[in-house]
């Protein structure tokens, strides 16, 4: 189930460019410098995802996570994971004013997550579309994002018993806004057949180079 080294490199390249684009779009939207880290990519068995997320956020901290499913020729769920500092500071950036109430904070988290997931996945899909011929409809559809967990220990976020995915493509992106204490992590969970699809797309991508 693991990616070959070539496939990993190709995925890395696609993700790098996609994140660069996502970063500049987000910067334009938020009117603020956005720093998106170079994504780290892993294919993990579900049991390893919990510990990986724990490492990602830096150990025993409480996290809040938003989930959003995507459908199309790639299917899966994207998780956006936030450290305990949350994102109160983002309020004014997205057109909220005054103090941030709980409902507004949640709405903000959902909004930011939706933007991150859409920009990142959209970027990846665009890269693939530009490089190779994909049969059928290349647009992904998104369902409304929802709050998955609020202030839970990082390793309690993923309960392998409650998820039907067996493997996950973990695309780890750190997202910081200049001058603002805000870091989030993006994680894409895809079922086996979608990862399989991804692998064949990556092979085509490599051939096209």
């Amino acid at each position, binding site marked *: 189930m693991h990616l070959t080294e070539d496939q990993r490199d190709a995925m890395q390249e696609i993700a790098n460019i996609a994140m660069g684009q996502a970063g500049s779009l987000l910067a334009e939207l938020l009117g603020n410098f956005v720093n998106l880290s170079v994504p780290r990519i892993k294919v993990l068995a579900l049991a390893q995802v919990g510990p990986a997320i724990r490492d990602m956020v830096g150990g025993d901290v409480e996290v809040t996570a938003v989930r959003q499913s995507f459908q199309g020729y790639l299917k899966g769920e994207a998780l956006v994971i936030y450290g305990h500092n949350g994102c109160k500071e983002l309020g004014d950036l997205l*057109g909220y004013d005054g103090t941030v109430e709980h*409902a507004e904070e*949640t*709405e903000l988290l959902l*909004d930011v997550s*939706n933007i991150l997931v*859409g920009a990142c996945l*959209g970027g990846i899909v665009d890269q693939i579309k530009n490089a190779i011929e994909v049969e059928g409809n290349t647009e992904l559809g998104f369902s*409304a994002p929802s709050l998955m967990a609020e202030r839970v220990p990082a390793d309690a976020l993923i309960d392998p018993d409650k998820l039907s995915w067996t493997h996950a493509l973990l695309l780890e992106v750190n997202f910081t806004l200049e001058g603002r204490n805000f870091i989030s992590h993006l994680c894409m969970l895809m079922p086996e057949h979608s990862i399989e699809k991804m692998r064949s797309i990556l092979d085509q991508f490599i051939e096209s180079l």
Partner: protein
Amino acid sequence: MSEPTQAIHLPDFIVEWVDVGVFVVNRNMEVTLWNRFMSNHSGLDADAVVGRNLFDCFPDLPKAWLSKKVQGVFLLRNFAFTSWEQRPYLFRFPHNRPITGGVDHMYQNCTFMPVKGASGEVDSVCVTLFDATDVGISQTELKKAMARLAESSNRDGLTGIYNRRYLEQRLSAEFDRCRRYRDHFSFVLFDLDHFKRINDTYGHLAGDEVLCVVSRRIDELLRSVDVMARYGGEEFGVILPATAMQSARILAERIRLVIEREPVEYKGIPIPVTASIGIAEFEAAAPSHEHLIRCADVALYHAKASGRNRVACYAPELEAAAPPA
């Protein structure tokens, strides 16, 4: 589309009549499509809205927020969403449940979709608006019921004050909080003296009345942050946040007095009641909140052993005389 001589264009028909709000705005926030659902609920027909700026037609809309939301869709070419749970409605529409509602307006879930023109660029944004009132009402009722259930599972059935389960839960939380933030609190444990004698002499109903009256009297002495619970049969516990032993002692003395001062009256019969009280203060070095209960219990034992109707503060030297834990 309503011209009888023309064949019905099915997609147009569906958009017009589907029981979901559908409207489209361009980059200038001018409305280019407004379906029947939107007309019916807003009271403004497509003729009155199409071609006009959305905010001119509906000055009540949250302009700054909505503009930014729509701009984001243009820019990112990405779907966007709102949920009734965070933002109950976009448009202030009445809902279809005027009798059984209990909510003021139609709850709405909205999806904002980028519409690409022939050039492939996004030239407008289509918004769908789902009536989520039914879901909202049942969810709200469910939440209320869950809250009531949680509340009643924390209460003592007889006195209505908190029960032991809740007390221990709060004690544990307060213990952790004080340890983390280097704060302090005290825990008071008290017991009605010779309660069995009251039951035997005046009957169990009289005993119940004593428990109720005593908890009401003490409740009036407490601050809103204090937590009083029925710990056992005639035993009560009180958590006093941010309170040192000396202040807790003053309050405990007032508790003792308010119980002793006036007999509890049951069916015209005055029943004299007194209480013995033990106090323990939070110590960061203590292994757990159970240890604090044990210390209060040692102090309470001492108060009883010294003749009852008195307050005792925990001190390590009291341990020697206390029964084993």
